[in-house]
């Protein structure tokens, strides 16, 4: 099966399963992003027609929410907290280190496609600030050294 055909099958499965739920659009977008890592621009027309919405409505929802993305992320996504509690424990310095180490800014992916860096406004780990999340793993009291070590551990 070609990549496009496989993507179409995934979209079809997800929308068929979820479209009759009340307020189905967010659950559908979540499942698509879970399956593919992002919500391809090409899928908007299909989602819109399945839910009897306009393309503008679907695009409007995707673009409203910070979490949804329309381009493929890096192999690992790093969510670095920027909120007050982490700032009180030196997250600005950590942020500078992380950006410098990866050579990218927020919302960017390293040229080798390994890492995407996203800001997050609170992970609820304020009792061990500064905090970050790499893929599904959470880290507290992060320092420049422990950040570098985490990168090594996930094979950077």
């Amino acid at each position, binding site marked *: 099966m070609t990549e496009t055909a496989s993507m179409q099958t995934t979209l079809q499965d997800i929308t068929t399963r979820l479209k009759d739920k009340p307020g189905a659009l967010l659950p559908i977008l979540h499942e698509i992003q879970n399956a593919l890592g992002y919500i391809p621009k090409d899928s908007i027309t299909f989602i819109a027609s399945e839910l009897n919405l306009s393309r503008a409505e679907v695009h409007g929802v995707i673009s409203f929410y910070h979490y949804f993305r329309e381009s493929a992320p890096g192999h690992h996504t790093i969510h670095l907290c920027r*909120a007050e509690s982490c700032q009180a424990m030196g997250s600005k310095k950590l942020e500078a280190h992380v950006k410098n180490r990866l050579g990218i800014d927020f919302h960017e992916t390293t040229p080798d496609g390994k890492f995407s860096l996203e800001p997050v406004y609170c992970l609820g780990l304020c*009792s061990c600030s500064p905090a970050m999340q790499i893929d599904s793993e959470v880290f*507290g009291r992060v320092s420049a050294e422990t950040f570098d070590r985490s990168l090594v551990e996930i094979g950077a």
Partner: protein
Amino acid sequence: MAITVYISCDSGALALGAERIAQAVSREAHQRGIDIRLIRNGSRGLFWLEPLVEVQTDQSRIAYGPVQGHDVSGLFDSGFLNGSPHPLFLGLTEELPFFKKQQRLTFARVGLTDPVSLEDYLAHDGYRGLHNALTISGADIVRQVTDSGLRGRGGAAFPTGIKWNTVLNAEADQKYIICNADEGDSGTFSDRMVMEGDPFVLIEGMTIAGIAVGATQGYIYLRVEYPHAHKALDTAIAKAYAAGYLGQNILGSDKTFDLEVRLGAGAYVCGEETSLMESLEGKRGLVRFKPPLPAISGLFGKPTIVNNVISLASVPIILDKGGEYYRDFGMGRSRGTLPVQLAGNIKYPGLVELAFGLTLRELLYDFGGGSASGRPIKAVQVGGPLGAYLPESQFDTPLDYEAFAAIWAVVGHGGIVVFDDTVDMAEMARYSMEFCAIESCGKCTPCRIGSTRGMEVLDDIIKGRELNKNIPLLRDLCDTLLNGSLCALGGMTPYPVLSALNHFPLDFGLTDQADAA
């Protein structure tokens, strides 16, 4: 018989390495041929001691912590499974002063039980509230909640019983219960701790709410940043269905209540109840005009209760022990307990559930032990990113909704973020405007445009440009946000901005308080 060992699966503990410690303890026990029963409990909320390892002994649970990977074999060598001394020995968990001084009602089971064990929940007084609720009328359930004096713990502090009563009296073919689990405020994590550490209490609270007002469908709107809470809730919901605590004919009654978790997608504004409902309906999270109130016309235009996690998780104990029991805690019009979260630059960060009335100073120093850095505490932000910054001179304010309102501050969701004297309050004020600009839903002009203009004005102020012109301009802008915004995001961003300016004029390049006016 196997010895029971507890290591938390709370994300705060996981972030400090609890998963690795749990694996190491299992491995070490296996290698030594010792039979242990490892339970992954919620967190006790003493985060400077996480990863905390507890051992069940004849007396009670004995705690060791914070345990690192290299400590594990030494713990076994010294006989920690019998509660023997070790450099990390802390004594009985429940005798630790930080824990012992608390009054845990809503958090009674968190850290004590296996979060997703229904048997454990039942063995620790779980579902007693629901049993009581099933024997009385909806109006009587609402009366208990009203009598308890419970006010919305999300931050707005609206009396929960009055909200429920409005939905009870609304005529409709369908009503909804929504749990607002979009806990986006920095410095807060009590919702997360409950959902990860005792998900059944939230499920029970929502079921009671549904039975009380005649709502048959509930949604937990959970922020996507909480994957561990999501997993715990889904597991607990499935078990509740299997055992007849959810679905049709709950516990053999004629009551029905269905419950589903829905994920948010990283929008702070969706913690605002009308924006949350738009999001649940599958739309952009744009704030709605009020009225109509959600209690009259809410989700899909139907009468809807929207309550915070802690509000709903406080309902089971109210229905179990009665509204008066709960009301006997607290002060003034702030009844019951508040789970306070100590965060930021603080030596002993964690969760402190206590009756209202304790002062900030007691929380910061008696519980929190002062700053983590050892430097003087300069400011604390109470109530999340829309809460005011308080200087040392206000630390004697008791935790009470009205006492905070009197000094133009908010208790909010009970999060306290501590800053030491290295913080630049003008930078924090700028961040508040930036946060508002990033998270604004864009529906109303003061918030959408005012936040960006606020950032620009603060940039000028930070650079020392024309303070005599820019300080009044900032105040004027804040006035517009405060009075012209549709919801609390734009309407309360002036709290941190103006409190920073009023209490810390030096950081804004002003020589004294008078210049700040």
